[in-house]
């Protein structure tokens, strides 16, 4: 099993969810996060006082998939989340040791 952690533009959340749903992936966890990579922040001015806002709002998507489905899922995700501009975000993939469904103690890929 692989865990996919994708940090994407907030406005790309819906297209990504739809793309994943289209290939039969329903489970995921979403967190509103702030951060930046190469994308520079912006300047805000309130009554003459300047503030540099360099941590920008992003969405963090976490989902765990069976090894066999990884490439397919990554392809759907990158296609849906891409604008081609700086700030599109990043995807990290991890090995997962175990998955447990709390309701009935299913283990491994059966729990996904």
């Amino acid at each position, binding site marked *: 099993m692989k865990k996919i952690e994708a940090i994407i533009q907030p406005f790309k959340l819906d297209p990504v969810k739809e793309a994943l749903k289209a290939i039969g992936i329903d489970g995921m966890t979403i967190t509103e996060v702030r951060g930046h990579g190469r994308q520079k922040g912006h300047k*805000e*001015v*309130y*009554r*003459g*006082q300047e*503030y540099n806002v360099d941590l920008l709002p992003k969405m963090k998507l976490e989902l765990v998939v069976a090894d066999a489905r990884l490439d397919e899922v990554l392809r759907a995700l990158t296609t849906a989340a891409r604008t081609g501009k700086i700030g599109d975000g990043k995807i990290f993939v991890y090995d997962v040791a175990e998955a447990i469904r709390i309701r009935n103690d299913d283990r491994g890929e059966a729990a996904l």
Partner: protein
Amino acid sequence: MRLLTLLVCSVAAMAQTPQSVDARLAALDTAVKSAQSAGDNAWMLTSAALVLMMTGPGLALFYGGLVRRKNVLGTMMHSFILMAVITALWAIVGYSLAFAEGNPVIGDLRYAFLRGVGIAPNPDYAGTIPHQTYMVYQLMFAVITPALISGAFAERMKFSAMLLFTVLWALLVYFPMAHMVWGKGGLLNAALGGKIPCFDFAGGTVVHITSGVSALVCALYLGKRVGYPHEQMKPHSVVLSVIGACLLWVGWFGFNAGSALAASGLATSAFVATHFGAAAAALGWMFAEWIRTGKPSVLGAVSGCVAGLVAITPASGFVQPFPALLIGFLAGIVCYFMATMVKHKFGYDDALDAFGVHGAGGTLGAILTGIFATSAINDGFKDSAGKVLALGWVDGNAGQVLNQLIGTAIAWGLAIVGTLIILKICDAVIGVRADRDDEIQGLDLSMHGEEGYFFET
């Protein structure tokens, strides 16, 4: 047949009322007076309610949006609780000190506990409305004035110290200033026997200079907020501030047009001048900022509108619509530079620009009133022969500008000295500044044990 019946009836009616012409005229006179009183009283009660709306929710939202999230309730409370504190103080002694006849600086205690302030009009101030209407209308001004100061000490003053400060400030600064400008026999009263007649239609000196200058003294005395100016202190919700500023704009019609104390033509011209001043100032601030920083901020536009309302306040019942536009436009630009460049250059932490907007705008408005006041708008000032007096420079009375400067100087002096003394007292008795840990935690939790927002519940 019906016509005949009608005729008989009316002849009979005439025969049954053998009133003299004098008696009927007297009855008519009473009816006309009662009708005028009804109209005036309706407008003045409405105005009183509008002015209360300026403090809460108007100012509470305007200031509440400008602070950080951890201080939103504490800041709104500064405005809200004064609606209660000043009301009690006003009933006990405030109205009397401000509006009873006394010496040129302060009223005596004849109206203490509102004794003798009933339904019968007080012809010295407003002959067509109940004395109580006048009293409660003036109360709303006394409520908002100290609330304006809270913009300077926001996010760092102890709540208990703020209460004591406000009560003493009303007693030592506001009531005397209101008496001098509006009270019978007050030193600066232009209508009721003041030695130095100063025009202040709705409170440029009484409300805005006193509060704005006291705000500067508070900002200097309390010192900067922890982390200012290096840490992020962005307004937590400009949305709240926009709503607050719009409520202030609407409420200000009660403040200025209500100061005509009647539903009169003068109320109309004050209403128009107020509106024009606000509009022009919003544009003035917006364009000044657009040119300097490249973007017209929403906060800038609404701050400009408030600055214009401040500046037009003393002038509103004295000036033509076009000078009102000019006064507003100048106020928008001047207050923009005060709140941005001047504040940063001198480094004082006037957190929400109470001085930059109210002190600067009030001073500008008070002086410009001396230039643009005209008897074409306000013919209520007459000499002993009944001839209408020239008012401002545009009427040929250049000396009025000097009177306005004197009135302004007295308001500045009283605000500086009074506020310093009061802060010293509060500091000795309670300590004015919140503990550092309390300030970092935020006043909502440390002073009030609450938080403004829960997103989880």
